[in-house]
């Protein structure tokens, strides 16, 4: 009897590990065994924790790029990936960067959070390893004068300009309420917006900070509700943080227009917030999904799941590096850098052409959530609405 009970308990514990019914089983490709020859690139991003979805998007984007580029690499190949987890934590990012250095990668695609990218860049730059971030939009990323630092996405100073222009020109807003979750990226962006509001005759009714990982925003939302702003500007580190906020906004009956930013742009937002995500505006880089280069990316990505916000940017970053390596005929950092600066090609996300400081230019547009999908809504360049 006693033995049977013991056995039963053991079975239950095992069953706990097996209650996987309906659990999301994403493609987890094992890091391939290191080979003597070939090119090894690293990816850096949060693979666990609250920003895991975004980190895995980056990893998968690089995997798709490797699959597309491998046949073209000829004698230089094969290209392999070493994916590391930084959990969006500055310390873990530096540790992961050092691990990638020991693994002898020649380029790192990542990271996601600006607060991880900036510290991780230090050891990588010292080791002359390229770092191409597909997602870190904070201005400081490319302003440290690092020689091998590149950025495929846009910059937050441009993003905040687009956001403020949208609020004043299109929404005709007079007052705005701002919230951020205190990361280098989210607070940096929110501060930029606040500064620009002063010059744009847009009154900032309040600027609140919440903690990373918070799920209860009732206190902030109560203040927002009482302040009655025309626009509520939400700068959070990712979609999983924004979804509960949108749910609570709807629950509290706040009818204010909501403007969010690129980190919130993710299919996961609609999955988690469902109908409460409807009508939310976001700033995100313009991507034409009808171009042949985007379709090539989408084909390669198909078996990895649905592309996330920064999958295409990660793909382009890896493709750009591999193109440069191919042109340089090897992975010598100086030669590759010279080739990288010459690049000008149609990527999946946009036209990729790096500037002297490593940036590739911003092309922020306003998108809106409509019927569970992101749609282009307004172009800050010409102040025109996109046609349906």
């Amino acid at each position, binding site marked *: 009897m006693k033995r049977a009970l013991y056995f039963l*308990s053991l079975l239950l514990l095992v069953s706990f590990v097996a209650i996987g019914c309906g659990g999301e089983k994403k493609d987890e490709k094992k890091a391939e065994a290191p080979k003597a020859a070939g090119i090894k690139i690293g990816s850096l991003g949060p693979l666990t924790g609250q920003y895991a979805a975004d980190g895995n998007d980056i990893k998968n984007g690089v995997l798709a790029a490797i699959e597309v580029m491998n046949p073209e690499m000829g004698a230089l190949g094969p290209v392999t990936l070493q994916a590391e987890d930084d959990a969006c934590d500055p310390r873990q990012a530096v540790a992961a960067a050092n691990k990638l250095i020991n693994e002898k990668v020649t380029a790192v695609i990542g990271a996601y959070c600006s607060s991880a990218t900036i510290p991780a860049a230090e050891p990588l730059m010292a080791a002359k390893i390229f770092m191409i971030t597909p997602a870190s939009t904070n201005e400081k990323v490319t302003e440290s004068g690092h020689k091998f630092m590149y950025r495929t996405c846009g910059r937050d100073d441009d993003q905040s300009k687009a956001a403020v222009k949208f609020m004043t020109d299109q929404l005709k807003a007079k007052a705005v309420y701002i919230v951020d979750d205190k990361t280098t990226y989210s607070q940096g962006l929110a501060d930029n917006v606040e500064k620009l509001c002063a010059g744009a005759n847009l009154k900032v009714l309040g600027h609140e900070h919440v903690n990373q990982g918070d799920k209860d925003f009732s*206190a902030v939302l109560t203040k927002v509700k009482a302040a009655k702003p025309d626009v509520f500007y939400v700068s959070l580190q990712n979609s999983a943080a924004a979804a509960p906020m949108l749910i609570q906004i709807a629950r509290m009956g706040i009818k204010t227009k909501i403007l969010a930013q690129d980190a919130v742009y993710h299919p996961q937002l609609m999955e988690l917030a469902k109908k409460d995500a409807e009508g939310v505006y976001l700033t995100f880089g313009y991507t034409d999904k009808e171009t042949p280069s985007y379709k090539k990316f989408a084909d390669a990505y198909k078996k990895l799941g649905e592309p996330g916000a920064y999958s295409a940017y990660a793909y382009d970053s890896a493709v750009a590096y591999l193109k440069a390596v191919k042109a340089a005929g090897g992975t010598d950092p100086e030669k590759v850098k010279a080739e990288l600066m010459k690049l000008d090609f149609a990527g999946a996300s946009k036209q990729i052409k790096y500037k002297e400081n490593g940036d590739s230019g911003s092309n922020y547009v306003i998108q809106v959530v409509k019927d569970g999908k992101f749609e282009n809504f307004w172009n800050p360049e010409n102040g025109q609405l996109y046609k349906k």
Partner: protein
Amino acid sequence: MEVFLQQLVNGITLGGVYALVALGYTMVYGIIQLINFAHGEIFAAGGYMGVILISWMVAQGYPPFVCLGVALVLAMGYCALLAMAVEKLVYKPLRSSSRLSVLLSALGMSIFLQNGLMLTQGVYDRAYPGEMVQGGFEIGGAMVSYMQIVIVGITVALLVGLNTLVFKTRIGKAMRATAQDKTMSALVGINASRIISLTFAIGAALACAAGIMVGMYYGSVRYDMGFVLGVKAFSAAVLGGIGNITGAMLGGLLIGMIEVFAAGYISSEYKDVFAFIILIGVLYFMPTGIMGENVDDTRV
């Protein structure tokens, strides 16, 4: 005033959830003087079991309240069994060894369970299907959603049920006796092992209900959700006086209230700081917590 009322409503909802989880900590501590660190993970497992069951039943087309009710009962049963299994396999063999080894095995169990959830359920947030209970009403400028009413209702029902169980039934009497003196209660014919198992089961069932309600309220669950909430619920148990059931309820409510009022009147970024400042302050003047008795440690 608007802010005050709104925060009061939010504080009660949040505090109730903390109280439910805190009870598991306090009951287990009361009976075997173990801080069961794996309790937060049981809470998360409950949240996941809820999302699995509710998603499945919603897909079958059952009405929301049936889904919620059935899922709540089944998931609570599952968590109770899980906690009993943990107790039998991990804590019981160590019962006669030093308290430190049991504490460490509790920490290990917490890591094991959290990683088990991560490996089986993935690292992504998992969405609860739709909003089970929609709408709400306004009272004095404060928005009260039906969801909050359901949560508070379930919480109150569970707390009343627990109180009846502990203070009005024979099993409850046996539990209190075991908590007071294990050897002595065994001498008068109480099966201490069974009572300890039962205590784990009850605590887990309450945490499980809290997990489901948190999942519904915020719309999603994640494998590591048990950690932060576990820490707060544990603080609530300590604040109320660990080992004391009424204290845990009170502590939970207090931590919830302090958090939302600090967020509402001072700043959201410091809400946790204030909750812990109050905790430290109370413990400074009342080292055993608000309702805690002064127990001579040589007894255990």
